[in-house]
C-alpha cells in the first residue's frame, strides 16, 4: 500500500469539452475517483476514464431526510471525510467537481487543506469556471474596465465598497438570502433584498444580464437583459448568475498622474 495522495480536478462547465488534458491524465492514473458531477455526460465521461468511481452526489444534503447532515455544510464535511478515508488508506485519490474545483466549491479546499495538514501530498488543478464562460459569451474583458465578484448573499448581507465604474458579477442567485443552508431556492425575500441592495448603487433602469452558461453542446447560453426594477420578476434558476455592467466611467486621478509625470492627453 502506497502513501495516500489527493488531486482535485474540475470537469469544466461542458463535459468532456472543458476537461483538460492534465485532468484526464490524472483521472486515468488515480486508484479511486470521488465525483460530484451534476450531469450524466460528465459522470459517463469520468467513468470511461476510470471505472472506480464513488459518487459524492449520494452524500449531498437531502432536505427530506437527515441522512447527510442537517444542512449543506454538514454534507460537505461528510464528502471531505469520504475523500480523506481513501487517502488515509494509502490510495491515490482524485476528487472531481463541476466547473473549476476551487471556485465556489467548499469541500475541495477543505479536503486539500486537511490532506496537507495530515502530511499527504495534495494539489488542485485549475479548470474552466462559469466565470470563464461568462467572459466569452458576453464578450466582456475584465481587463478593460475592471471586474468585481461577490456571492449574492454576501453582497446582500454585508456593506461593501462597490465600484460602479467597474463591472460586477453576482454568483449563486439561486440561494440568495438563504441563511439556513437547507434550501436550494432563493429565500422568500432573497431577490427583493438583492434588488434593494443593488439600487443603493445603480438606478432602477440599469440594465443587468441574467446569465447561465451552456451545459449541453446543443444548447445556447441564457443571456437575458432586464432592468434592476424587473429583476424580482425574472426566473432565477440554480445556475443563474447576474452580470452588472459599469454605470459610469472611472475618474482619472489627474493630481496623481501629474505628480508621476504621466501624460494623460490620450486617456479615455
Amino acid at each position, binding site marked *: 500500500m502506497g502513501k495516500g495522495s489527493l488531486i482535485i480536478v474540475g470537469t469544466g462547465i461542458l463535459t468532456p469539452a472543458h476537461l483538460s488534458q492534465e485532468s484526464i491524465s490524472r483521472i486515468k492514473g488515480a486508484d479511486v475517483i470521488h465525483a460530484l458531477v451534476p450531469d450524466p455526460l460528465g459522470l459517463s465521461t469520468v467513468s470511461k476514464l476510470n471505472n472506480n468511481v464513488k459518487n459524492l452526489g449520494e452524500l449531498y444534503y437531502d432536505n427530506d431526510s437527515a441522512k447527510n447532515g442537517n444542512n449543506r455544510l454538514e454534507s460537505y464535511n461528510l464528502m471531505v471525510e469520504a475523500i480523506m478515508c481513501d487517502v488515509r488508506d494509502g490510495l491515490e485519490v482524485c476528487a472531481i467537481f463541476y466547473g473549476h474545483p476551487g471556485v465556489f466549491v*467548499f469541500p475541495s479546499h477543505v479536503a486539500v487543506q486537511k490532506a496537507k495538514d495530515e502530511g499527504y501530498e495534495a494539489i488542485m488543478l485549475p479548470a474552466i469556471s462559469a466565470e470563464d464562460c461568462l467572459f466569452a459569451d458576453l464578450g466582456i474583458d475584465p481587463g478593460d474596465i475592471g471586474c468585481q465578484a461577490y456571492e449574492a448573499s454576501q453582497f446582500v448581507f454585508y456593506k461593501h465598497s462597490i465600484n460602479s465604474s467597474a463591472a460586477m458579477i453576482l454568483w449563486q442567485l439561486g440561494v440568495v438570502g438563504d441563511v439556513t443552508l437547507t434550501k436550494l431556492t432563493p429565500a422568500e425575500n432573497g431577490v427583493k433584498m438583492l434588488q434593494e441592495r443593488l439600487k443603493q448603487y445603480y438606478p432602477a433602469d440599469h440594465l443587468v444580464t441574467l446569465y447561465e452558461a451552456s451545459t*449541453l453542446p446543443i444548447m445556447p447560453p441564457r443571456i437575458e437583459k432586464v432592468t434592476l426594477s424587473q429583476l424580482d420578476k425574472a426566473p432565477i434558476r440554480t445556475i443563474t448568475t447576474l452580470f452588472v455592467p459599469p454605470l459610469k466611467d472611472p475618474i482619472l486621478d489627474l493630481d496623481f498622474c501629474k505628480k508621476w509625470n504621466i501624460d494623460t492627453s490620450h486617456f479615455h
Partner: protein
Amino acid sequence: MSKQLIEFLTELNTNEKLRKNFKSDKEQTMKKYGVPQSDAQLVLDKNYDEIMKKLGCDYDISRNSVIEAFKIKK
C-alpha cells in the same frame, strides 16, 4: 432517455466532424448516429428543460460553497 443520446451529446462535445454534420443537418446526423426518434425530436424542438430532466441533470448538487459567515457560525 436513451444511452445513444448521452453518447451523441458527449461525442458532439469533442468531434468536430460530427459537430459540422449536426450543424448542417441535425435530423439526419442524429438518425445516422442511432438517436431514437423521440429523443431526437426533443433536440429538434429545442426542448432543453425536458432533455435535461430526462438526462437526469441535477444542478442543485453543483452548489457547493458557503460564504465565510456561515463557515464561522455553523
